[in-house]
């Protein structure tokens, strides 16, 4: 692996211990993945602020102690708690304090306090073709696919090593030749009515992720006017059911002006067509209940201003049922816009709680005696299907709202139903 004189000096500790430690890890990793050299990165998205245990706190505090400073703009991911309302969310004091310690260390290193899994909807956006290190799987897939920036699926702690060093090993999706699709998925069996239903995108993403696994995938037949929020929910689902880091929507996303431009020409592509039956099967598997609903969760990934506008419109002045909660997770940036735009007041009057900073997946729902969660996120439904004893119901935003108002799981007829 080629290293410049400066990079060798970084590895030898001439730029401080934090840079030396980071470079050692990155060079090791680069050698294992046959990286040709190191490349400068323009931005980092720091997912290591999301707390799963003590190891990452040790690591971050160690970096602070040895004088670490991020060398490039670094947005911070959603953490676990709403830093201003964790008590109300029923987090334990111990969990909150661990989180706050971790956050403090990351801010000390120079993280921008965006506290969101959707930095691209909170103002931190790379340019087309730039090399970046974005962790958090929905952010990674969005940066690669929708923006056309270049990032691998950076895992927690690796991206902060990149940010401290300002460089990343050049392999995988940093190389243009690896960004071409081996798989083409056709949507010729899905009609316009299906494709204009917002609830289809998480289902499609989920199906694509299961089929593609960790490979680059192209999708043929997506409508050109697909919204940013639909792309967000599609990507988040594909990155949770599989390990997809890059998709091309032919004639929609920037690296796929036409099919030829985004296909791997070295071998014939694997072709697959998604049928209404596949959508029905995915939707069936995402839900474990269809009875009463206790809590409706929105904002996985974090809700955008546009999604809040849509929510307000669909509510049309109605209130959430007294037996049901509706929580929406978003960034502080969007929360601020809601306050300024006058939406927050209406949402609160309807009985909706808007939380910032944290991730909807880590709230201690058992402390709320929740039995049934409903969500419009396939990512959330996928991850919540775990050892919690809580049932989950997936449907679109409209159904989430009607269910929250009536207190029953409502699933309106979908265009892909039999």
């Amino acid at each position: 692996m080629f290293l410049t004189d400066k990079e060798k000096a970084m590895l030898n500790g001439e730029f401080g211990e934090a840079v030396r430690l980071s470079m050692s890890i990155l060079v090791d990793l680069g050698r294992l993945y046959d990286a040709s050299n190191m490349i400068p990165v323009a931005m980092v998205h720091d997912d290591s602020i999301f707390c799963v245990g003590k190891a990452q706190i040790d690591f971050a505090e160690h970096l602070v102690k040895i004088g670490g400073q991020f060398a490039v703009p670094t947005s911070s991911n959603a953490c676990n708690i709403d830093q201003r309302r964790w008590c109300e969310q029923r987090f334990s004091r111990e969990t909150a304090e661990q989180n706050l310690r971790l956050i403090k260390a990351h801010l000390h290193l120079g993280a921008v306090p965006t506290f969101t899994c959707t930095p691209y909807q909170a103002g931190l956006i790379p340019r087309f073709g730039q090399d970046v290190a974005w962790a958090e799987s929905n952010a990674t897939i969005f940066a690669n696919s929708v923006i056309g920036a270049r990032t691998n699926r950076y895992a927690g702690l690796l991206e902060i090593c990149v940010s401290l060093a300002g460089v990343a090993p050049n392999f995988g999706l940093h190389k243009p030749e690896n960004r071409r699709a081996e798989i083409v998925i056709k949507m010729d069996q899905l009609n316009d009515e299906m494709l204009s239903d917002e609830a289809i995108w998480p289902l499609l993403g989920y199906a694509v992720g299961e089929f593609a696994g960790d490979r680059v995938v192209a999708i043929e037949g997506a409508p050109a006017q697909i919204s940013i929020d639909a792309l967000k929910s599609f990507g988040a689902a594909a990155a949770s059911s599989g390990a997809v880091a890059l998709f091309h929507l032919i004639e929609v996303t920037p690296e796929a002006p036409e099919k030829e431009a985004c296909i791997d020409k070295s071998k014939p592509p694997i072709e697959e067509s998604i049928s209404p039956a596949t959508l029905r099967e995915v939707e069936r598997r995402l839900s474990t209940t269809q009875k009463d609903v206790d809590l409706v969760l929105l904002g996985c990934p974090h809700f955008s201003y546009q999604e809040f506008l849509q929510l307000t419109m669909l509510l049309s002045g109605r209130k959430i049922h007294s037996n049901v909660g509706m929580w929406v997770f978003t960034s502080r940036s969007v929360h601020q816009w809601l306050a300024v735009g006058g939406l927050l007041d209406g949402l609160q009057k309807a009985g909706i709680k808007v939380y910032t900073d944290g991730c909807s997946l880590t709230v201690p729902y058992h402390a709320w005696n929740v039995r049934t969660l409903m969500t419009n996120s396939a990512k959330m439904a996928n991850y919540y299907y775990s050892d919690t004893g809580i049932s989950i119901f997936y449907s679109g935003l409209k159904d989430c709202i009607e269910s929250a108002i009536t207190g029953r799981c409502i699933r309106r007829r979908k265009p892909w139903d039999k």
Partner: protein
Amino acid sequence: MGQVMKGRTVAPGLATGEALVTSQPISFCLGVDPSTGLIIDSRHELYGQSIVNKVLVFPFGKGSSGAGLVILELIRAGLSPAAIINLRTELVVATGSIIAVHFYQRTVPIMCIDEVDFFSLKNGQMVEVNADSGWVAIFGGS
């Protein structure tokens, strides 16, 4: 010496353990409990099983990038697999192990092997993973 397979080293180290084998990808983030080492994804065929000190055999990682954090935490707490064998090692799986080498001076070797060898591995076999020399050896079967 049992059957020996050559492989590609992703993370260094030498370890022996009982194989825990799945053909399904694993999401460490929210799929494995970092405080117990148990698989908590109820849709996974290994649901409820412990990965602690096992040679964990799965095709590749999936899901959120918190996986690296979970693997490092498992290593810190002594609840990690003894070694990992993949078809292709995703970056999010490699990260935790590589950082542990530099930060905790502990190794959890990771190796990739080819498909024929991968699908010949069976639950309960004793497996030695020598990532420093680039091979995997199998002892007995069940």
